[in-house]
């Protein structure tokens, strides 16, 4: 009879965790490759307006960013609460936009220089005067492709 009786081994064998580091490393490499770190810290408040007829901005290497909005609370004492432009890591005046675009354009690869888009990341509460000034500067340096960066949402959110 004891022929059919399985030998009771008692406790379950422990699951080997030897491959756990491998799995974690795999995930780690994925996120390391996929990560794009913010290259400039925002010094202006940047609540983008909502729109739903949007097109995606692929290919990050073809985009130049211009930020604008009220200086965030840390900088409010020094720079006031009017709309300001931020280029890379510092505040800039409207006149500096042209030079910034030319410098950015020169830093890109030759074949990309004609297909660059300027993404305007402008805070929703900014006055159009500032945006118009930026647009005039962009026209002067012939950077005509622009993108009003928005978040995806219904336009009625903008009305209050």
């Amino acid at each position, binding site marked *: 009879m004891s022929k059919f009786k399985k030998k009771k081994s008692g406790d379950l064998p422990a699951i080997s*965790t030897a491959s*756990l*580091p491998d799995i*974690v*490393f795999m*995930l*780690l490499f994925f*996120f*390391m490759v*996929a*990560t*794009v*770190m*913010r290259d400039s810290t925002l010094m202006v408040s940047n609540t983008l*307006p*909502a*729109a*739903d*007829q*949007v*097109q*995606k*901005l*692929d*290919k*990050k290497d073809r*985009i130049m960013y211009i930020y604008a909005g009220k200086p965030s609370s840390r900088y409010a004492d020094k720079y006031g609460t009017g709309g300001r432009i931020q280029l890379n890591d510092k505040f800039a005046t409207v006149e500096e936009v042209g030079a910034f675009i030319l410098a950015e354009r020169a830093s890109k690869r030759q074949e990309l220089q004609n297909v660059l*888009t300027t*993404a305007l*990341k*402008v*805070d*929703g*509460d*900014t*006055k*159009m*005067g500032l*945006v*118009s000034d930026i*647009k*005039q500067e*962009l*026209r*002067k340096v*012939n*950077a*005509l*492709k*622009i*993108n*009003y*960066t*928005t978040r*995806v949402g219904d*336009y*009625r959110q*903008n*009305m209050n």
Partner: protein
Amino acid sequence: MAKRAAPEVNAGSMADIAFLLLIFFLVTTTIETDSGLNRKLPPMDEQEQEDIIIRQRNIFTVVVNKYNQLLVEEEPTEIQDLRQMAIEFLDNGGGQGEEACDFCQGKRDSSSSDNPQKAIISLKNDRETSYKVYVAVQNELVAAYNDLRNREFQRLNPMLGMNFVEANKIYNDPRTSTNEKSALKPKLDEVKNLFPQKLSEAEPNKN
């Protein structure tokens, strides 16, 4: 001299270190891409700017004042009605003879636009206008064009099973193969020709 075996390094904490790094990258990752309204600015050439005479009925004026109120064709309007008004204007097709529009489904009102190729939307804003209202207006005008382009795209390409916006998205996707792109391009261009985006922006008031 007895050879001493090197003690094995304990790799048990390897997972912990890896987890730590993993969590760091998880937190800092931003995979989402930006999206927004693509526009093209008019080039700035000061020389010869010949005046082209445009009939008043072919211009659809939208003015946003500094209190963020909308004036469409001289009438105070709410933004909810803007899209429909723009569609009616573009799709009117009131032209006669050579200027007739055979695909328009509008009212053929003789006081509105002749055909979509002639129709121009003129947008004017004040320096004090809020940017988000401006974006909302832009969004609605682009939506009017997209609605009409979708309609025509589906009428011309019923077999494709997608509309203009979806087709355009596929066309602009870098992962789409060149074959597919070249097949889509003439179809997209055809519709773009039927409803060209003629959105002119006046320079804002200085006061």
